[in-house]
């Protein structure tokens, strides 16, 4: 059956990247459409009327929204293609979902606070992001991936933040690797995977984009 898969995204969005990595992992072909966020297309507004945000996966005309939700959907809809993102064991599954939920609740905000604040607030944001990453590093332990031997749900949802690290480090004037060497090693390991390296943009381009955003948001 001819399948139609469309992804509405934005090149610098770590959330949109999650969807692309997941589809690449499953070997699913899709059409990618870049949204100009200040001028959202009518398709985006129609497909995600509640949040009006990217990414949106449109599978045979039906939209799926919210990136972690989309990644789970991809895992389930194409379960015959390659290994499952989520472990089989219910307890391990719950743990994977817990950590993705944690990442969603904490990481983006902490990162954003680094480039939207100054002085004391920025110092607090730096401290926070390091705490979050250290906790995740502890969870990784000595495993190859968060999913154990296979690149899985937590890996997919976390790895896409890597291209923003140069931005956080440059603007915040600190080094993440010094505090979280094992986690950085894991990020680099993931970058060896085509699904990741072909998806993540050049961190320098992300940094330039962030400088533009700072002007746009009026951050000095």
């Amino acid at each position, binding site marked *: 059956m001819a399948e139609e898969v469309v992804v509405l995204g934005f090149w610098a969005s770590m959330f949109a990247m999650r969807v692309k990595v997941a589809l690449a992992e499953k070997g699913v072909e899709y059409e990618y459409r870049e949204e100009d966020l200040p001028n959202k297309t009518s398709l985006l507004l129609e497909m995600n009327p*509640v949040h009006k945000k990217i990414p949106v996966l449109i*599978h045979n005309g*039906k939209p*799926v*929204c*919210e990136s972690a*939700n*989309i990644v*789970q*959907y991809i895992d*389930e*809809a194409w379960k015959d293609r390659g290994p499952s993102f989520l472990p089989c064991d*219910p*307890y391990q*599954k*719950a743990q994977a*979902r*817990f950590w993705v*939920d*944690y990442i969603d609740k904490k990481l983006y905000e902490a990162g954003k606070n680094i480039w939207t604040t100054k002085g004391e607030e920025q110092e607090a944001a730096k401290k926070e992001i390091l705490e979050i990453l250290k*906790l995740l590093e502890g969870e990784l332990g000595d495993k190859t991936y968060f999913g154990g031997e296979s690149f899985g749900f937590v890996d997919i949802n976390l790895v896409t933040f890597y291209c923003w690290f140069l931005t956080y480090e440059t603007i915040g004037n600190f080094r993440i690797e010094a505090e979280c060497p094992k986690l950085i090693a894991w990020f680099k390991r993931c970058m060896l995977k085509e699904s990741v390296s072909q998806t993540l943009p050049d961190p320098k381009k992300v940094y330039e984009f962030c400088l533009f955003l700072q002007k746009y948001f009026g951050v000095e």
Partner: protein
Amino acid sequence: MAKSDVKLIGAWPSPFVLRAQIALNLKSVEYEFLEEALGSKSELLLKSNPVHKKMPVLLHHDKPICESLIIVEYIQEVWASSGPSILPSDPYERAIARFWAAYVDEKWFPAMKGILGAQDDEARKAAVAQVAEGLALLEEAFQKISKGKSFFGGDHIGYLDIAFGGFLGWLRVIEGMGGIKLLNETETPGLLKWADDFAAHPAVKDVLPDTEKLAEFSKVVIAKLRAAAAAPAK
């Protein structure tokens, strides 16, 4: 399975704890309810959920599972053979159910808290409008998803019924406080009937907190929310 193999750390007023209780009931799982003393956190809770220090926490063979919606999915997966499935079998329908449950947690619940924590009438009115807007979206979702049946899950209570239904007691408290009918025949006819069916369901009726008792307790919550709002920004 021995009752002590399954424990739930919670407190009776919490809509999140209620979700876990309903799911356990749906699967006819016997469990020990470890009631947290209100206003303080037990050693066990802090040890079981060091990251968020929040309830509910499900302890299965002493292994903790945290976050109410994650707990509900876990219960479905472990006790899949008991009772009807909490999640739809179709991946797309599952994605829709998860989407709306996330909406309830991320957008609708904060608006509900906004009503309780409102410092003045204007703020309360604005929060009520937000909650009503959310209910309109949920009504539309209900009409689409239920396909004419009693619940979001169809004939049986499902994931989204549990996610949203956990708040039913609080919704009724807020209606009572303001003398408003947030669920009503004109704007939310589907949800109005759904609420009664949900509250009467055997897995729900014995654990849904009594509205009056919850209203009394809400005074504590309101005081806390107002104090937090009045505190200087970090």
